[in-house]
């Protein structure tokens, strides 16, 4: 019997979009493991398939997208083959989600209290009064001032930071085992961002929820995550412990990303950028998909796709630089 120590294990996930121009492999064979009680970061540029991966976990990918291969094992249970009805029991209860735009992720016509208590009523057999009580309690927990009064506020009466707190409250109210946060602080300013990250960290340690943190902000990753996966054009490029990754980035892409962070220490040198553009997923290069932008590209990179190479210490990178057979020649 196989042992399932990981809360969520994604194996060879492929989610493709069938458009008129052709099949777009937005997620093209992704393996991610989220251990119990940990925060895992998923970073990459816009359009690299981070969000689609999250949607695939939740089975929320809409037409014309479809999961074409792979498994999403949640406590050893494959979510990829579940029906909508089965998924509805898991969504919000065992796995919940926070979205990028706190401005639009709450329904403008209902009070925030009603929206959160509805999430409780949906999954738990409690009375309305009890749901209200628990809503106020979770509001207090996520740091919303005057929770009794705010219960009957409409979303537009709150600031972005408060709305994101409401979203986090809604996501945490059923004590999920996994929370997927899709760029939860991208739309917030830095002071609020720090508060929200602090809150997530605190709730995570109190309730033991695992978090999949999707972001393009490496600062957020450094602040919050235990492990990091770096995605590029639908594939995981590098995976390591967060300290390891920041100290010893191995893949040229990760290296470039880390170098592209503006340095505020005073030296006004020109900011490093990764040259070129994210490739069109309809016309992926033949070899390594990062090859056209890679500074260390070799001849083999244009002909063959590299596999994830194990570098020891839980560090993996998808690059020929670490392929002993290739480099040994």
């Amino acid at each position, binding site marked *: 019997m196989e042992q399932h120590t990981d809360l969520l294990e994604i194996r060879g996930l492929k989610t493709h979009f069938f458009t008129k121009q052709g099949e777009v492999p937005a997620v093209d064979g992704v393996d991610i493991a989220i251990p119990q009680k940990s925060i895992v970061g998923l970073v990459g540029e816009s359009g690299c398939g981070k969000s689609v991966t999250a949607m695939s976990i939740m089975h929320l990918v809409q037409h014309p997208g479809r999961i074409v291969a792979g498994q999403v094992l949640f406590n050893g249970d494959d979510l990829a083959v579940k029906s909508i009805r089965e998924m509805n029991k898991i969504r919000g209860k065992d796995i919940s989600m926070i979205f990028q735009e706190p401005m639009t*992720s709450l*329904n403008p016509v209902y009070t925030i209290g009603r929206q959160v208590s509805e999430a409780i009523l949906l999954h738990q057999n409690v009375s309305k009064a009890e749901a209200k009580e628990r809503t106020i309690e979770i509001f207090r927990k996520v740091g919303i001032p005057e929770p009794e009064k705010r219960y009957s*506020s409409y979303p537009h009466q709150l600031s972005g930071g408060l709305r994101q707190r409401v979203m986090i409250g809604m996501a945490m109210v059923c004590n999920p085992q996994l929370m997927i946060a899709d760029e939860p602080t991208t739309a917030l300013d830095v002071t609020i961002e720090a508060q929200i990250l602090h809150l997530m960290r605190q709730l995570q340690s109190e309730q033991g929820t695992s978090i999949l943190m999707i972001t393009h902000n490496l600062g957020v990753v450094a602040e919050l995550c235990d492990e990091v996966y770096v995605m590029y054009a639908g594939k995981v490029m590098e995976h390591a412990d967060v300290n390891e990754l920041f100290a010893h980035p191995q893949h040229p892409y990760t290296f470039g990303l880390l170098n592209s962070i503006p340095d505020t220490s005073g030296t006004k040198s020109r900011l490093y950028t990764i040259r070129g553009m994210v490739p069109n997923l309809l016309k992926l290069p033949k070899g390594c998909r990062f090859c056209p932008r890679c500074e260390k590209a070799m001849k083999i990179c244009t002909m063959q796709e590299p596999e994830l190479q194990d570098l020891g210490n839980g560090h993996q990178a998808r690059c020929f630089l670490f392929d002993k057979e290739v480099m040994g020649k």
Partner: protein
Amino acid sequence: MTEDKNKDFSQLKDTDPIISYEQEESAELTELNSTWDNIVNTFRHNHLALIGVVIIILIILAAVLAPVISAYDPYVQDLENKLAKPSAAHLLGTDAFGRDMLTRLFYGARNSLVIGLIPSIIAIVIGTVMGLMAGYLGKTADFIIMRIADICLSFPSLLLAMVIMYTLGASLLNLFIALSIINWGMTARTVRAETLQLREKEFVEAARSCGVKRSTIMFRHILPNCIPSLIVIFTLDIPSAIMEEASLSFLGVGAQPPEASWGLMVSENKDQLTRAPWVALIPGFAIMLLVLAFNFVGDGMRDALDPTLKE
């Protein structure tokens, strides 16, 4: 609320430099009103909407109390007094058969209101449900529903109504059916378009990620966001239903003489336009008043129900 904020800031001179996080956050909390308070509040400031409400209430009262407040019988002809000018005896004069215009207006309001409201309500309910399903359930449902709507819309509406009335016979119930079939398509199209937009919104995605059922998302999350448009459609449907009733009556398949309805009165009296203009114009004016009143109220309701306009 803005006043309060200004006050807060004006008090903030150099002496007290820091505004605490809590203070700032709680300053944002506006007074919380119920939906009903909001409607009352909006209408108090929107005079046109208030006038609209008053006109509609007066017309409804006139319709309900018609037998009590009118001095004449709407059907009894008095040919000696035909086409009388407005006077103390006949406040709005008489028509070509000597029937009191004011009395007929009161009785006609009954038909016009019923014919304006009921088919519009039926059409808006059917159209909304169909539009939601077309917009949310996916390609097949969308195709089937919208093609049926297209067929209903592409037929000349008057012709379609006449066909229905001829095959089913001229009666009030059949008139309702005919007018509903004409009008549901527009509602369905509008609601479908809104649904297509709203289903991409993050709060719908958030609801889906919470495990909310499809029907619940359609009716509890998307529908309430369509209500401002629905109210506008509704207030436009009522006048058009009244006008269509008038056309059908004119063609002899709507309200049957000697019944009084405003549309029928316009068509009955149109020949008197040169001899006794008030006879032809008064029912038309009444229709205009009712239609305008519904439009004013509709605008007011839209403002009141739009949560982003709440202060």
